[in-house]
């Protein structure tokens, strides 16, 4: 009797809150997406955008070009990249039981950078023109190199994280990996040619504008596979909230689950880093914002929420970087840091005390 009277309102209340948050985030994403198509150095009215998207012509011919060739692929890239980075960050935070983990902080983006640097700087200086003739092979090579770089760093961190769980140790480790890949990259730069160096340096600023229509199917397919894999491991992720030993005692096949989580997060971080450059702070900030909104760590809702919010925030960050109506373009990484850094500070300060957040 007590079961029924207590159970119903609780489930109903919790699930309606979760549904409301997900619907609100979806609407936010639609709005951000529309705004990112409309705003820029030239403002285009929304009804014109709808016409152009439906296959018609805009009021001015240049508008069609702007929307179809620049803003639409960029908006899709931003949305997918934001979703990928946020989900990747959420996976890492749960796997490492570390509230400050994300691809950037743990040095996984640095690993991807090294992979990209090897492809961009070395193949070029060796005189192999991967990028000119065989575009698709070049893209695949870039994604593969970035993903392998990301996965290698993930593997190193995963091995060390089993021994030391201290938040601080992992963060220092990420920092050191960042320095080491940084120095390897500078050595590569030293032996590379100026054109390729410029390409690489532009890449490190981060941009959502680098994915062309011909690259889009590959980019989006890889991210969708990563996101679906992440959702598929939502159940073991919930058990991982209690730590690995408890997870195993509740029936999780820890080895398989770990591989699934590591694979999904390295693919997501790797592909985004390959195409958009190392983009910081979205991965660490978005999962926290989602948990606050949802009031739960349950990954069955936290994962879709992180994807939706990450997509919206990436679009918003990109719009701010464009400075609507102006001709200036700010570095994307500067904007994501402005959004994300305060969240990180808040996370550290809101834990019961500083020592706990760095020693537990």
């Amino acid at each position, binding site marked *: 009797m*007590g*079961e029924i009277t*207590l*159970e119903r309102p*609780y489930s109903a209340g*919790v699930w309606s809150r979760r549904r409301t948050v997900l619907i609100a985030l979806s609407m936010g994403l639609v709005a951000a997406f529309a705004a990112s198509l409309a705003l820029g150095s030239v403002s285009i009215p929304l009804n014109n955008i709808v016409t152009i998207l439906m296959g018609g012509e805009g009021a001015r011919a240049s508008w069609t070009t702007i929307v179809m060739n620049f803003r639409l692929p960029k908006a899709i890239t931003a949305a997918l990249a934001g979703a990928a980075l946020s989900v990747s960050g959420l996976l890492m935070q*749960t796997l490492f*039981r570390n509230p400050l983990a994300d691809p950037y902080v743990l040095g996984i983006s640095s690993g991807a950078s090294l992979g990209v640097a090897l492809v961009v700087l070395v193949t070029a200086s060796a005189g192999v023109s991967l990028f000119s003739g065989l575009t698709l092979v070049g893209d695949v090579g870039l994604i593969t190199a970035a993903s392998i770089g990301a996965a290698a760093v993930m593997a190193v961190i995963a091995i060390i994280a089993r021994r030391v769980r201290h938040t601080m140790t992992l963060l220092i480790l990420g920092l050191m990996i960042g320095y080491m890949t940084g120095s390897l990259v500078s050595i590569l730069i030293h032996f590379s040619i100026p054109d390729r160096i410029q390409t690489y340096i532009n890449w490190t600023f981060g941009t959502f504008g680098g994915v062309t229509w011909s690259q889009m199917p590959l980019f989006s397919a890889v991210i969708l596979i990563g996101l679906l894999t992440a959702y*598929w491991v*939502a*159940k073991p992720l*919930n*058990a991982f*909230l*209690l*730590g690995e*030993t*408890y997870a*195993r*005692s*509740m*029936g*999780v*096949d*820890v080895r398989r689950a770990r591989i699934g989580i590591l694979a999904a997060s390295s693919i997501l971080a790797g592909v985004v880093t390959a195409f958009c450059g190392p983009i910081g702070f979205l991965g660490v900030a978005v999962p926290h914002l989602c*948990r606050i909104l949802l*009031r*739960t*760590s*349950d990954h*069955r809702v936290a994962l879709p929420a992180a994807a939706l919010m990450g997509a919206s925030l990436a679009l918003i960050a990109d719009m701010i970087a464009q400075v609507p109506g102006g001709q200036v373009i700010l570095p994307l990484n500067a904007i994501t840091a402005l959004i994300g850094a305060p969240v990180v500070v808040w996370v550290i300060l809101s834990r019961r005390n500083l020592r706990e957040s760095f020693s*537990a």
Partner: protein
Amino acid sequence: MILETHDLSIGYTKKTIASRLNLTLQAGELVCLLGQNGAGKSTLIRTLAGMQPPLNGRVLLNGDDVRRLDARALARRLGVVLTERADVGMLSVHDLVALGRYPYTDWMSRLQPEDKRAVNRAIESVGASELTYRPVSELSDGERQKVMIARALAQEPALMILDEPTAFLDLPRRAEIMFLLRDLARESGRAILLSTHDLDLALRTADRVWLLANGTLTDGAPEDLVLSGAFASAFQSEGVSFNISEGAFHVQRPQRTPICLSGDGVTRLWTARALERGGFEVVDSAVDRVEIITQTDSTRFRLHYAGVLTEYESIYALIAALRDNSGVVQTS
């Protein structure tokens, strides 16, 4: 027979902790594993739970080797509560306990009616119904431990193993958890094995004690182990001795001054404790003596010491005076 071990040796490649263990656990039993720090309690627990390979021999859970069962099958037979204080993120008590249904639910962990019943039953049986919708992060340590026990119960295992479940709790909470576990074992017909440092509570609650000391495990009712002297010898160390008539450990002090205490009832018992703590030995006759004078509305302590008679209204004042007068009373 829920659990049995055959010729089990536990330890690490370089160090054998105990060998040739042939242990059994019956349904409805609460068994306390006792032993000093470093005796190997955790190693035994981890080996029995299948988290660590045995050096030799086998652990059978309902007839199957724990090392051969896959994670899901093992989780349906064995629930575990660890010493570590798990930081669980943002989960309600209900959601945390529902994680215990992991080995029964589908890939989306959707709760079927029987899962919901098991979750509610588990929460109810640890007396945490009023906490059901609270976030776990807001619970006290004692409440959190109850909820972790409920989570293990929701797995509906035949055996529950708890590694020092009372380690971080205050005394009343320890007693509460121990008696809760005893009742759970009786009522649910599960076997419960726990390790603890709480000798006193273990003696009062356990159906059986496994005493691990110097590589051997002594098995029996707590009273058997007390009477056989196994208990005293396992925990013997310099300056501490086991008092068999009180069933408690005492810190030995050299040079105790004899003092006579007259009076009766609880007041006498606690006054004697205070005097012993102060460095006196309570004997039947001595030159110095304390009389407890009980009147309807007050209790006074009359002290005959070195030929002087004084009266005090509290044990504290009595002990303080003894300390000032004699220098015999040692601060502890």
